Every structure is written in structure tokens, then in C-alpha cells.
């Protein structure tokens, strides 16, 4: 049976179609879901895509985190369904308290777009099992509010419990504490990160690599990891 992975579209989502495409290229069936609905349509996993929901009004991701469908997302996450938040989706997950901490304006106040090197810190989550700990990957980063912050106690806890999923490597592009690029919850089913794996899934359309221009497909393993976790479950 082919896995069905839902991608939720919010008002102002930009990368929902790219996330659907990534799901398809990884070998699952993408299911388009709508923020105003209470129906997850029986999907096996969820992606909250990037964009600028509600124009980043109030706080990035804050109003979307109060959407009707988010009550079902929280229930599903609590039951162990794999949930991936990318960029604005990550901001929604912290606003919904599904992941700890918060995201604020980049330290230097500027929007960043670059191919970003990351180090995999936790390869035991539903979305990272096809990576190795310590592996370096490159996927696009593009945001204005990507600075990860949290209290000293929270930082100590997430570092102590191994909840950092990805760290920026080479350069910290936005002032994030401890170079944190992405987090997982304790159970490993909910993962959020600022960079965009869905933009590095097909040769010809990804970041440059040493081998060839635009050949980077390091984002694909996020989605194949989720599919593998569903098969194993």
C-alpha cells in the first residue's frame, strides 16, 4: 500500500505544491489538505509547508497555528503521526507548542536565501532515519524570521535530551542559539526546521554540488525516512 502524506495549505503558504511534489518523488501519494477543514482525510503523515501565512502578522506562524485543522494536527501528533514543519511550518509547530522555543527575526535583520549546509544531529526520528548522525547535507534556506531562541532551561533540556535534529554547519546564518536549524519532539515523530528539504529532491532543480550544478537531492531522505517509518509501524 502506498503511503498517503498530507500537505496542509494555509492562507499565504508558498511551498505547498513543492512539498506535494517532493512527497510524490519520494514514492508516496500527496494529499492536499485545507487549513479551514477539520478533516485529515485519513493521511499517514503530515507536512506543514513554508510560506508567509497571514503575512507573518502578529508573529510568524501564530495565526495559522490557531487554524481549525490544527486541533486535528495536535491530536494526530500526540498519537505518533509523523509531522514535518518546514520554515513557516516550523514556526507554526513552535507556536502550537508541539516543539519547544520560538523563532524571531534573523539577528542581522535581513532576509536570507542561500544553499545551507547542515549537520544531522539526530537520525532516530521519523523524518531523519535515512541519514547518519554527523552527516552533512545541503538544502536551500530562505527566511526572514529564522532565529531560534528559547530559555536557558529549555536549551539545556533540548540539548540534554538530543532534541536538536539539525545544526547549521559552516556558518550560523541567523543568530540561532547553538546553531539550531531544526528540532524533534521527544517521541521523534514531530520534526521542524527552517531550511527547505522539498527544494532539494530532483536532479536539475536542487542546490549545486561538487558533481554538477543543481544536482543536490539531500532533501529527499526526509520524505523517504517518513515513508520507511510508516512501513515499519
Amino acid at each position, binding site marked *: 500500500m502506498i503511503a498517503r502524506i498530507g500537505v496542509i495549505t494555509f492562507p499565504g503558504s508558498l511551498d505547498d505544491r513543492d512539498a506535494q511534489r517532493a512527497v510524490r518523488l519520494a514514492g508516496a501519494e500527496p494529499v492536499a489538505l485545507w487549513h479551514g477543514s477539520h478533516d485529515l482525510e485519513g493521511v499517514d503523515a503530515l507536512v506543514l509547508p513554508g510560506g508567509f501565512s497571514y503575512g507573518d502578522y502578529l508573529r510568524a506562524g501564530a495565526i495559522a497555528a490557531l487554524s481549525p485543522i490544527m486541533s486535528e494536527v495536535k491530536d494526530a501528533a500526540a498519537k505518533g503521526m509523523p509531522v514535518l514543519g518546514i520554515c513557516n511550518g516550523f514556526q507554526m509547530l513552535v507556536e502550537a507548542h508541539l516543539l519547544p522555543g520560538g523563532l*524571531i527575526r534573523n539577528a542581522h*535583520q535581513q532576509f536570507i536565501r542561500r544553499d545551507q549546509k547542515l549537520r544531522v544531529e539526530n537520525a532516530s526520528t521519523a523524518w531523519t532515519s535515512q541519514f547518519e548522525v554527523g552527516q552533512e547535507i545541503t538544502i536551500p534556506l530562505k527566511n526572514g524570521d529564522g532565529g531560534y531562541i*528559547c530559555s536557558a532551561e529549555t536549551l539545556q533540556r533540548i540539548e540534554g535530551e538530543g532534541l536538536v535534529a539539525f545544526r547549521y554547519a559552516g556558518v550560523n546564518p541567523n543568530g540561532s542559539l547553538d546553531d539550531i536549524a531544526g528540532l524533534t519532539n521527544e517521541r521523534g515523530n514531530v520534526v521542524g526546521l527552517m531550511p527547505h528539504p522539498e527544494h532539494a529532491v530532483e536532479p536539475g532543480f536542487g542546490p549545486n554540488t561538487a558533481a554538477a550544478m543543481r544536482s543536490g537531492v539531500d532533501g529527499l531522505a526526509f520524505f523517504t525516512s517518513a515513508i520507511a517509518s510508516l512501513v515499519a509501524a
Partner: protein
Amino acid sequence: MPTIVVDVMPKAELLDPQGKAVSGALDRLGYEGFGGVRIGKRFELTVESADEATLATVRTIADEILSNSVIEDVVGIEVVE
């Protein structure tokens, strides 16, 4: 109709990139004696009545929606006519 004003500020111990940028501009322009600048938000809620029940609701809204307690503090809730 009365207005209830809610003031929200980034937590004191956390970096406020916007305030830092303004502070840097003041330094550059030669304004001396300003140790720092922090930027917060002011919400004006128009209400039919600023009674105790409404204020209680506003406190809940301020804590749960207008601010994110991970990164911000509600520093004031006051009624202005």
C-alpha cells in the same frame, strides 16, 4: 466605546534584533546617552464594556494569542476611554 490597550514586549533576556538595529542607528547618528532600545507591540481592543468579565477575557487573549510566552511578556493591560 472603551478601548483596552495591551502592551507586549520581547523578554528582557532574549535578543531583540529590531531594537538592536534602532540602537545602532542612534549611535551612528551621534545621539548619546541611550544604553539600548527595545521594540514591542501595542494592541488596541475596542470593547462594548470594559467590565471585569471583559478584562478577564482580555487577559486570556493577551496571554494565549497576542503574546507568545516563550519569547514575549505581556507588560500592561489598561482601559483607556
